């Protein structure tokens, strides 16, 4: 009985936190919807990521609005398709801000694409960009006044992967990565980590043209390097293509990839060829609903976005949006860029229920730095240890 009451209290507390606590005293009297925006690749070769992420964010905002919104105001999350194209991202930013009056960009996708919109969004329109699915160290060091994020940097994810491969005693490690700078920089972080931690380990760099579909020559090249482990910094479609081709060619190595590829799609498309894949996750496993936050997410996905599986990518966007709304919910007066920044900077150890606690400050605009290691076993992602950071000893 006591356990039931405690669970009920915990769920109630989480609900109040999630919905920002709709106290009438906090209301500014404005009942118009709060407009937020995001850009994502909903078409094209990267759509597999964008569609999952949109579903997670959409489920969160439907859940939020069904539970009263923010201070009684509905929240509208406008998502524009950028087809993973920087120019289309800038056009999407103009539409979201100029036509749809978005007061913040929340849960958008892409490092290079979002960076392409900085000039207009952050400098010209002075609209905050909060919790992008992406980002790199230059975004937060030094902090930009209107830019906040909670996604552990890809470079840090790569450093954890490098340490993991070394811990697994691999001595010849190939890093297979797409050729654009955003991917190459991540690969370099891993290469540097391996060289500094274990100078005797041989690190090999294999750059692949972005969006390659025929992985036979790539796998032949990797096979010729004789690695005992391969770390892939590629899109999900390319990870699948590599895994299938490597299995076909009988290339057996340890295989690692980073958090964006911990998805149901890898299991669905690569099948048994992906078994044993070691990866990372930003959030708690979506198939373990023992945590109340994950249960809310899974239930909302089933209720509002039934056509999309509740997986890591949708769960991360749920978390990205939830953290942003938690900050906006703390604003008692007018919601504008200044009040949003102030609310975010006062956020300390915020528990979204699905990822490690988030803390921002005036000098720290990246709210999270840890990652959960996972491994694909028998068609299911399973946890490996607990959350770790780039400076952790594995």
């Amino acid at each position, binding site marked *: 009985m006591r356990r039931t009451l405690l669970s009920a209290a915990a769920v109630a507390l989480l609900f109040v936190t999630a919905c920002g606590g709709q106290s009438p005293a906090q209301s500014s009297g404005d009942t118009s919807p709060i407009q937020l925006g995001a850009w994502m690749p*909903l*078409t*094209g*070769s990267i*759509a*597999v990521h964008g*569609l999952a992420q949109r579903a997670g964010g959409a489920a969160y905002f439907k859940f939020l609005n069904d539970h009263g919104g923010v201070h009684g105001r509905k929240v509208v999350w406008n998502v524009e398709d950028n087809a993973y194209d920087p120019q289309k991202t800038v056009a999407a930013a103009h539409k979201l801000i100029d036509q749809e009056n978005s007061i913040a960009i929340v849960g958008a996708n892409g490092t290079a694409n979002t960076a392409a919109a900085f000039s207009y969004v952050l400098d010209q329109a002075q609209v905050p960009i909060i919790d992008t699915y992406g980002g790199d160290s230059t975004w937060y060091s030094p902090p930009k006044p209107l830019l906040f994020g909670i996604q552990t940097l890809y470079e840090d994810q790569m450093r954890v992967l490098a340490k993991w491969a070394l811990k697994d005693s691999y001595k010849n490690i190939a890093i297979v990565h797409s*050729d654009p700078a955003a991917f190459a920089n991540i690969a370099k972080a891993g290469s540097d980590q391996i060289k500094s931690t274990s100078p005797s380990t041989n690190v090999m760099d*294999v*750059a*692949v*043209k972005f*969006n*390659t*579909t*025929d992985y*036979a*020559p*790539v796998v*032949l*090249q990797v*096979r*010729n390097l004789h690695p005992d482990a391969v770390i892939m910094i590629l899109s999900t*479609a390319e990870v*699948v*293509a590599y895994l*299938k081709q490597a299995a*076909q*060619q*009988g290339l057996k190595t340890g295989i690692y990839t980073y958090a964006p590829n911990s998805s149901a*799609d890898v299991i*669905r*498309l690569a*099948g048994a060829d992906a078994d044993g894949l070691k990866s990372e996750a930003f959030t708690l496993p979506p198939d373990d609903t023992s945590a109340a936050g994950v249960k809310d997410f899974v239930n909302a996905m089933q209720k509002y976005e039934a056509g999309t599986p509740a997986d890591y990518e949708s769960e991360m966007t749920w978390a990205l949006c939830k953290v942003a709304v938690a900050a906006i919910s703390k604003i008692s007066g007018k919601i504008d860029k200044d009040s949003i920044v102030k609310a975010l900077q006062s956020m300390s150890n915020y528990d979204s229920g699905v990822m490690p606690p988030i803390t921002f400050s005036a000098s720290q605009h990246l709210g999270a730095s840890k990652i959960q290691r996972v491994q694909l076993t028998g068609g299911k992602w399973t946890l490996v240890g607990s959350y770790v950071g780039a400076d952790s000893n594995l």
Partner: protein
Amino acid sequence: MNELPAVLVSGVVSGATYALLGLGIVIIFRSTDVVNFAIGDFGTFGVYVAFALLTRGLPLLIAAIAAVGVAGLLGVATERAVVRPLGPGKTFAALVLTLALSLILVSLAGQLFGHQPEPFPALVPGHVAILGLVVAWQKIATAALAVVAMAVIAFFMRFTRLGVAMRAAAEDHYAARVVGINRGLVAAIAWFIGCALAGLAALLLAPDATLTVTLMVAPLFRAFAGVFLGGLESMIGAAVGGFAIGVLDDLAGRYVSASFRDTFVFAIIVLVLFLRPAGLLAAQHRQRV
């Protein structure tokens, strides 16, 4: 270990898709003077229809036939509804229209079938090791089909009445009409065969690359390269060009740089076209002036 044989095998089997697509492009061009940029998307659309049939429990063979048939019929409908009303000689307008149609088809396929990548079963299961490379039987079948299609279509265009009529209609549609060639029928058949070949190429590629709305974008790019390399008016040239592009692409990926595959391939094409503007296997037209 010398991996050159394996890389060559990989290139040939990859090039088979480009060869099939290239044949489709050339057969339409030679018969109706239209460069069809939507041909790959017709193929993709056909495979989506096959996927929909498969998910409803129909056998793979029926779904495969439907894929090829749908791609061909889309071609016929396009020729009848979009290209023919333009009238003869509107090559550039037709080219732009097919480009627009390509964008529309990608968007339509996304709306109808979703942008989520889908696994597609192989028509021919299993693998075999050839010169150090494990190759799917599906890819070998693709290569064999490309060679057979090349031979059949070359024979058809050269030695059958209908084939000669198709070439005549492309050469001079007024003269063709005077001698009793039904240009509409010839165009419809050419578009059906060309787009059906694209459907076949997409069908054979989908199990390897997973089915997405952009399935044929990269192969079409390379197929066009093969067509220009071999010659836009040569059936055999288009197919050989497709195979050549596959081999060059894989050689560049393996021995030059995987991130400069396209650069290397297209640098060679520019060089070839500089020396032989009509393509490697096209007839050279010389005029005394």
